[in-house]
């Protein structure tokens, strides 16, 4: 960089980005469950308040749709001959859940909190990945579904 650029760079570095808005701080505070001083009315996200919903709903819907649609037999024409036992197989549920696993990914002790009734409690936030596997006993096809899940445990504490 030549000297002119150095001078300009120095000038730019002396310009500080504008501070963030109070609203943004409040929204982050709310998400992190820490009240900001002078707690005003709860401020929502600017957009996409329910943006997480599709990420939870869609995999579930897709898994269910897949499980229901995949094993369906082609429509039989009326009166068509069916081999012995075929009716029983087609009627049986094709995919059956064979395993469910909850994997604890992280656990964070968030310390003590005070509940609405004044009780002291300890809050622990845990992240899991739930994995459920279905199998089709007839075709041996399997379907595995993994979904992240967050769990917050609040345990009241009593000092005796």
């Amino acid at each position: 960089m030549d000297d002119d650029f150095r001078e300009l760079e120095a000038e730019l570095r002396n310009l500080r980005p504008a501070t963030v808005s109070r609203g943004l701080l409040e929204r982050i505070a709310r998400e992190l469950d820490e009240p900001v001083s002078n707690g005003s009315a709860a401020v929502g996200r600017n957009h996409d308040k329910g943006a997480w919903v599709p990420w939870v709903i869609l995999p579930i819907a897709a898994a269910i749709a897949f499980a229901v649609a995949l094993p369906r037999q082609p429509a039989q024409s009326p009166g068509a001959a069916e081999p012995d036992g075929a009716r029983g197989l087609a009627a049986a549920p094709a995919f059956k859940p064979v395993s469910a696993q909850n994997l604890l990914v992280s656990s964070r002790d968030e310390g003590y909190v005070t509940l609405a009734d004044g009780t002291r409690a300890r809050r622990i936030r845990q992240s899991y990945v739930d994995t459920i596997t279905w199998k089709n006993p007839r075709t041996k096809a399997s379907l595995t579904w993994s979904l992240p899940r967050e769990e917050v445990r609040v345990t009241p504490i009593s000092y005796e």
Partner: protein
Amino acid sequence: MTLIRQTTHSHPMEDAHAEQSWKEWFELHGPKLLLCARQWTRSRADAEDVVQDAFVRFWRRQRQLPGEPLALLLTSIRRAALDRARRESRRGAREEDALAGDADDLGLFGTAAEVDDRRRAIESALLRLPSEQREVLVLRIWGELTFAAIAHQLDVPLNTAASRYRYALAALRHELTGADCHG
């Protein structure tokens, strides 16, 4: 409305791995994140949303990870912003239109009392830069990233990042010199 405020000192990078309140950390680095996010979003509200998401995720789950926190956050913010921009582009909007258009929504400039001519000229010149040059400049100057980190961030060769930075500075200097001559 101001994008940037003049200051006589720079802040050292705080260690997000250490025990520190999120507010202290965010008050120090949030403005830089927001400024960078503005390079990839159509409005200040969009920028705030992506910064909020990235920061909450970072503070809850990622701050113990090794590496440079600011770089990690900027990566996260950029991805979220580009995802959002892709969704928006389906509705026919473009980032440049927003940046060049609605000045009230920019949130880039401070209150009138804070604004001086020189700062306003710099901000104006910044907004006229091609977006690929401006993002490199912002990441380098206010994001405090190295050229290597910028190249990684933008998925471009290191020389490209450095060249864009030089082009940006040259264009800024040209604009500002012109502004000085005329004004």
